[in-house]
């Protein structure tokens, strides 16, 4: 797996990524789309990551990007 932008989050990221990949290949792709066994790892990883994004000012850049993306968004979430 790729590293995190924040080295201190690497361990928890690795755990989450491994959990996600297992869920994706063994459950999600086989039709079980609603289970969420990786949720707890993800929220730990996110709280580690969000601190660093804030420190680096990346959270603001993301906010701006999200705003300009909101129009295109709806076209993909619907099935074509």
């Amino acid at each position, binding site marked *: 797996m790729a590293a995190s932008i924040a080295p201190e989050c690497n361990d928890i990221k690795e755990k989450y990524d491994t959990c996600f*990949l297992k869920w994706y*290949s063994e459950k999600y792709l086989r039709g079980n789309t609603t289970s969420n066994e990786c949720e707890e790892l993800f929220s730990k990883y996110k709280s580690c990551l969000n601190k660093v994004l804030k420190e680096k000012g990346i959270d603001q*850049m993301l906010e701006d990007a999200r705003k300009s993306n909101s129009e295109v968004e709806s076209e993909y979430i619907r099935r074509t």
Partner: protein
Amino acid sequence: MRVFSSTCTFDYSWEEVSTANWRKYCPWNDKSTHVVAVDTLSRTVDLDTGILRTERLITCNQSVPQWVLSLFGGSATSHVYEISYVDPISKRVTMCSSNLTWSNVLKVQETVIYRPSPSTPTSTTSFNQEAKITALCGGWQKIKNKVEEASVERFSQNAKRGKEGFEAVLEMSRRVFGEQRENENSKI
């Protein structure tokens, strides 16, 4: 604005490709070394459609032509914001990326789609990539053209290396999954 596009076919099923895609930038990929970090920002499954939506932050560290740095300043570290959608029913992965760094100078919008190839849908996957590159800096058209040209050139180099690197990840994934399965079977 300039458009860069490329298509290719991977000799792996859509399930394999869409799974390996999550670890495209791992140590098995020794070609895309400009990607130094990939972080997941959010992930949700739409209850009605089953579509998996993921937001990621991709951090790159790459050599930028010196004249670009002296014109616009900044560092060689850049960030890309990516939203992807996996539709497990129609078997389609769509990834939309845009640059966060230098976005006041240059706008790069990339869309990538992975879907089963029409001819052999169970064993091969088609890849379509399109990038729209627009220089926004005010002033001379000549400079804008030059910036766009250099960006397209860099983009196409990265795309070629990206494909080579992803092939290596696909091959390793198949081997490792095969070994895991063998181990599990021998336990039984």
